[in-house]
């Protein structure tokens, strides 16, 4: 074997450490897990390529609205039962009809909104456009709180449907609800927008089951085959301790507390129309011509909701279901039992359909909340992080915020629909009122063809929404609505404060930026290399420093330990780096960052020097490796951050990137 051969074999391990020319940039473990769980990252180009046809769009946008029929009747009944007992059933249909009238006008109003704001509809945009930023914050925050509530209410109601079907699950109501929220959030982080079918099947399944329920119900009704579910009730046995059966005729109940109860019941029924705004938020997702298709979808949604809601209320007056304190079995499940004749296959299908559409309704909020929050953030009223599209092109932070807040709400209320309902609908009607009033103003300013008709429609919409809002706020105030009445202004104030911060930051950052960029530079540039000891991490920094051409350059060592300082001193004299002298600075109080900051400040003192500090930083491969070391380099960066014209360059050293040549075991390292 020749000498050259030996050299070649010796050199092999070093050659591997030397400069490699293929770029090897491994992804972090976290990212690999994320890609595995959520699927590969979507490119920005893939945004908004899918347009929805009417049937799919109805499924995607109307699940929130249509699903309300699963609990609206029950919530009206619950209030009526407590107040007027037996007369509850005689007032159920009139209240339902009143709610449907409101629904009718809201649909008419939103037809206008869709036509006038086909690109970016929604209460926030309409209000901002016509009334300015501050009212838009009110509309937006109100809507955001209701999106959170939509998730909580829908999931709680969906769980109730499941528990009605399988009563043994009752102890796990809260856990099941939170699990549903987690599943929906995960699905949204993955980006479920692609799959219209996922929406279409449950929505149409529920609509189908609902229509079947009504058809069978009315057929039996006509044939006289529909009976009271709890015959005992007719003879004065009441759930929930109502004592009103002494009152003789229905008209008496319209007096005093009775009238209040009716309004309260009406307010609870207001939950039914939440979700009407969903289509106007998403007009851009429709196939061309967008606004026309969106209008058709809105009509279909309105008719479906109206039919199901009214039909269920009529059947309820014949079947006499009972509302339970625990929330289960639900009224719709009792109606199903009465109509289909017991807990049979059709009843099970109805319950599953209810569960699915309610879970989907929650999902609608997961599409709307993050987008609305991103509008707020785009206008500098919410943290900028909400505008960031994540891995799968969805607003990940908004999704997480919604999931967390709705889960908290579900846990706090024990996943009980009747405890959530009083909080519900205030926000929606606030935003309805503002956006409809905004539309009326829009017609008046723009005077497009048919503007007079538009003013009338949106005017009625605004007045009606405001009326309902007032009724809801007053009758439900003591039942929990006060939370929202207090919360919304507080949140708006918070957003305004946030906005002021953003605006002042932006103003400062933009003030004479161009002049600052072209201003004369500092005359002198000093580079300081922070050196702890002479290791590979410091070597990287020294090597990097040697590529720079400043006016002055030196390494600085803050001497905490005199032995280390002396060792470094000796080693440095042997290095032979003519351009990089070492300065050892006494550091009697052991604050390395402070000593370095003083050295930098001294260089800056002449007011015409730019200082760069090179800070070697070890990059650990595992998170727990950080625990083994203090983070002096981070503290150095923080200590220098406040000094003008002091700049910090982190020189990373990747631990575990070098393969060491085998070390003779007999000798040990000098330190």
């Amino acid at each position: 074997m020749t000498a050259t051969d030996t050299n070649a074999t010796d050199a092999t391990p070093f050659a591997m450490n030397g400069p490699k020319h293929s770029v090897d940039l491994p992804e972090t473990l976290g990212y690999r897990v994320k890609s595995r769980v959520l699927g590969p990252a979507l490119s920005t180009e893939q945004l908004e390529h899918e347009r929805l046809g009417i049937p799919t769009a109805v499924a995607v946008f109307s699940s929130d609205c249509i699903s309300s029929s699963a609990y609206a009747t029950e919530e009206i009944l619950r209030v009526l039962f407590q107040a007027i007992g037996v007369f509850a059933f005689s007032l159920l249909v009139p209240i339902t009809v009143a709610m449907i009238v409101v629904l009718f006008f809201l649909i008419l109003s939103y037809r206008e909104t869709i036509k006038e704001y086909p690109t970016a509809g929604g209460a926030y945009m309409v209000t901002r456009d016509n009334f300015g930023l501050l009212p838009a914050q009110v509309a937006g925050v109100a809507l955001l709180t209701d999106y959170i509530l939509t998730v909580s209410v829908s999931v709680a109601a969906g769980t109730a449907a499941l528990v009605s079907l399988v009563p043994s699950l009752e102890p796990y109501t809260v856990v099941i609800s939170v699990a549903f929220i987690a599943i929906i959030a995960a699905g949204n982080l993955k980006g479920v927008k692609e799959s219209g079918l996922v929406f279409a099947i449950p929505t149409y399944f529920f609509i189908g089951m609902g229509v079947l329920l009504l058809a069978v119900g009315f057929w039996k009704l006509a044939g006289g085959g529909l009976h009271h579910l709890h015959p005992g009730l007719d003879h004065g046995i009441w759930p929930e301790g109502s004592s009103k059966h002494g009152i003789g005729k229905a008209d008496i109940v319209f007096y005093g507390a009775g009238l209040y109860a009716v309004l309260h019941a009406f307010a609870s029924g207001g939950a039914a129309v939440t979700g009407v705004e969903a289509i106007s938020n998403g007009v851009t997702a429709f196939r061309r011509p967008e606004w026309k298709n969106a209008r058709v979808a809105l009509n279909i949604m309105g008719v479906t909701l109206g039919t199901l809601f009214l039909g269920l209320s009529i059947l309820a007056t014949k079947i006499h279901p009972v509302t339970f304190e625990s929330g289960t079995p639900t009224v719709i499940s009792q109606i199903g039992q009465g109509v289909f004749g017991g807990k049979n296959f059709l009843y099970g299908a109805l319950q599953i359909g209810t569960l699915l559409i309610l879970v989907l309704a929650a999902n609608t909020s997961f599409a709307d909340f993050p987008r609305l929050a991103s509008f707020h953030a785009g206008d500098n009223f919410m943290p900028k992080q909400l505008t960031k599209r994540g891995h799968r092109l969805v607003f990940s932070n908004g999704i997480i915020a919604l999931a967390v807040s709705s889960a908290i709400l579900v846990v706090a209320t024990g996943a009980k629909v009747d405890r959530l309902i009083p909080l519900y609908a205030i926000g929606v009607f606030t935003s309805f009122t503002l956006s409809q009033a905004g539309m009326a103003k829009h017609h008046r300013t723009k005077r497009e063809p048919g503007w007079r008709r538009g003013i009338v429609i949106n005017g009625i919409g605004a007045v009606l929404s405001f009326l309902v809002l007032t009724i809801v706020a007053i009758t439900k105030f003591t039942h929990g609505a006060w939370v929202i009445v207090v919360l919304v202004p507080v949140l708006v104030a918070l957003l305004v404060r946030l906005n002021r911060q953003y605006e002042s930051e932006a103003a400062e950052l933009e003030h004479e930026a161009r002049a600052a960029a072209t201003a004369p530079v500092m005359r002198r540039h000093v580079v300081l290399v922070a050196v702890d000891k002479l290791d590979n991490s410091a070597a990287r920094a020294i090597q990097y420093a040697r590529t720079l051409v400043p006016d002055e350059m030196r390494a600085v060592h803050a001497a905490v330990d005199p032995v280390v300082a002396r060792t470094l001193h000796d080693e440095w004299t042997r290095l032979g780096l003519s351009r990089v002298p070492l300065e050892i600075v006494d550091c009697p109080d052991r604050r390395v960052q402070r000593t370095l900051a003083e050295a930098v400040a001294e260089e800056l003192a002449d007011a015409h020097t730019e200082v760069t500090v090179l800070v070697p930083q070890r990059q650990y491969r595992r998170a727990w490796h950080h625990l083994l070391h203090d983070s002096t380099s981070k503290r150095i960066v923080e200590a220098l951050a406040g000094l003008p014209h002091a700049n910090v360059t982190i020189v990373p050293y990747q631990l575990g990137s070098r393969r060491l040549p085998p070390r003779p075991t007999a000798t040990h390292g000098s330190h």
Partner: protein
Amino acid sequence: MAIFRRRPRAAEWTAPPIAATPIGAVVTGQPVTIDGRVRRVKVQPRAGVPTLEVVVGDETGELSVVFLGRRRITGIDVGTRVALTGVAHAADRHLRVLNPTYTLR
């Protein structure tokens, strides 16, 4: 422009005082004895003229001390207390003493 005020270092003074001039009161061109602590050491690598430059300070000020022809003086390290006798002259921002006699204390 004093961005940072120096830390007070009065607590360092533990050795018995000798007849030394406070550094703040040193004038140029005359022999002077000072008594202070080595605050900084500048290590010149093996290139050019061998020099050892240190900064010595007491609570009244700092001056720079240069030993020509030497790279290392055992005992003169950061934090050691030293008494020096020499002639100070003005260098750009500091007073500077070239090749003083020194006593480690």
